[in-house]
């Protein structure tokens, strides 16, 4: 049976700032645990300084935990790559983005590029894992699409996917991790980081001076559409259908 690695990062509660399983990584772990139930071996991999960040994930189920000993702000990719090259996992599962630090969501893509594997985002479920992996991808609007890719592949769990059910504190406490010492990569501080402040509401900028702003503020935009008063039901239906078709919303 194949080996699956789930990349687990230190989560951070957005309100309290306390340590928790990161939402995206928990969704990725749910994918891994579903495969675990069909006989595959799951390893949770974390690159960071403390065991606590990894132990919160162990509360969901019992599986192997490996921690690469790295400082908190170091880039995880140079440490993860040699470890993965040694293990040759059939699948690498990751969350969409980290809850601490830059949170760019670039790591799975960079990992797939370095491994020469396919990277598939928004994965809602894995159906089959052998020479090829067959999976279901979540599309906007609740739709789903089936994809296939050769193993090994890097899968990014869908942002709205659910975490595994059932978390037990005792199981999290009992968990034992395997620490692995790795060579510390050189730091590359390219960006200055500042605390995030709430963003302004998205607004459309009005160009063309005061007159254009006045016109935009005072003009009445409603009622621009088409109006049919007491049409025969057939005609009303035809108009609605033509409208939906022009918008490309008819799916059948």
């Amino acid at each position, binding site marked *: 049976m194949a080996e699956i690695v789930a990349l687990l990062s230190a989560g951070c509660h957005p309100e309290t700032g306390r340590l928790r399983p990161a939402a995206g990584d928990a969704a990725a772990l749910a994918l891994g645990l579903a495969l675990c139930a069909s006989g595959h071996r799951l390893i949770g991999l974390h690159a960071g300084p403390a065991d606590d960040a990894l132990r919160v994930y162990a509360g969901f189920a019992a599986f192997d935990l490996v921690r690469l000993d790295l400082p908190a702000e170091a880039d995880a990719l140079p440490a993860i790559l040699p470890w993965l090259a040694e293990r040759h996992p059939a699948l690498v599962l990751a969350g969409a983005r980290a809850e601490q630090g830059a949170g760019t969501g670039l790591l799975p893509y960079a990992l797939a590029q370095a491994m020469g594997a396919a990277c598939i985002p928004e994965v809602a479920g894995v159906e089959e894992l052998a020479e090829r992996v067959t999976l279901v991808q979540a599309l906007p609007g*609740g739709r789903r699409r089936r994809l296939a890719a050769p193993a090994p592949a890097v899968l990014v769990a869908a942002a709205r996917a659910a975490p595994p059910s059932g978390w037990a504190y005792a199981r999290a406490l009992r968990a034992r991790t395997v620490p692995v010492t790795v060579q510390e990569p050189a730091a590359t501080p390219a960006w200055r980081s500042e605390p995030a402040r709430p963003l302004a509401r998205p607004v459309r900028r009005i160009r063309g001076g005061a007159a254009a702003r006045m016109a935009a503020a005072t003009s009445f935009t409603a009622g621009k559409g088409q109006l049919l008063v007491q049409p025969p039901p057939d005609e009303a239906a035809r108009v609605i259908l033509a409208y939906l078709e022009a918008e490309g919303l008819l799916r059948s």
Partner: protein
Amino acid sequence: MSARPRRDPHAERARATRVGPAGRARRILGDVAPAAPVRPRRDPHALRTAAVPGPAGRMRLDPHGGELLAHMPSLAAPGAEQPIVVERPACLILAVLDLPGGRLEGSDLGLLAAARDLADRLEGAVLALTLHGRPDLGRLGVDRHIALDLPDRWDPAAALSVLGTVLADHAPAHILFAETPLLGADVARRLAAATGLPAAFAVHRLEPDEIRARGAGLDLVGPPPPIMTLHEVLLADRPEPVLREARPVAVAVRPDAGLIEDLGEVPVDLTGAPLAEADLIVSAGDGVTDWPAFHALAARLNATVGGSRQVCDRGLLPRDRQVGASGTLVAPRAYLAFGISGAPQHLQGIERCQRVVAVNTDLHAKMIERADLAIVADAQAVMPALQTLLEQRRHG
């Protein structure tokens, strides 16, 4: 009797009154006849009556006798508007449009507006790349346009190989994407991983010398990197509708096959999907009494079911189906409202809908006013007619 002759003031006044140069009666005091006026009298109202509409649509006064207006190109020849041509741009800003389903969406327009803004500040030109179609981008602030007709399916490898060719041919200074899942956000990360170029994701402030990108609880601040994806706060803007060249640029590219194989869409029942992420919603209000027809129509369209507060209060739909201020704020591409009059709280909930179709018996309902396609009719008649038409369309 006195020797002093009597004066006749009326006769004196009549003698002294002449017709002046402007045609009005002028009285000359004293014996001196006035010289011809040095300066003609100015009519203060003439300027205003001679005003003509300017290029922005406002009335423009011209105190220089037509001299000023002659220099306004749009007034000189109203029929022939010349596009703005940027011949030698300082740099190129590549905007990679999503075009989901071959259509220009709001995020594409916002991306073009941001690219135009950046190009203007850097004295550069906007190069737009559309992979799945050839929309007309002449009035969307585009100087050069690369249009390809790749098959309309999710194929990140093809997009990546096209981008590689465009980067090699044109060497754009910045490549902009919209932060849209599976589209711009995905391709941008693939490009950053493949080329190793510096990248910033979810940029919410874009200046030529400094950008701010949203990280996890922090902002990353620095100079603009080559690859950027734009946060939705920057995508609400729209480009100025000025005619630009949008010169077609050819690219010779043979997209290579990727590792990922698309096995087609999985049929999913969307009638009970979460309202917040639905892209087609059929919603019922108090005007709906034929509930079997309503649910049959929703199932036939495979649209997500929603309802007003009234129907949820009466238990006709579950509470999680409620649309409005106290329910879910929805943002579908189309919202079909049957028998909803449009309470302010409901209209608040559908503020971000792209298209609204309303069927209601009341011509003066707020919903009819809000709708892009408004039909004043009974929902009970229209719903079965729509169902019949959909069945016909399916079978024949």
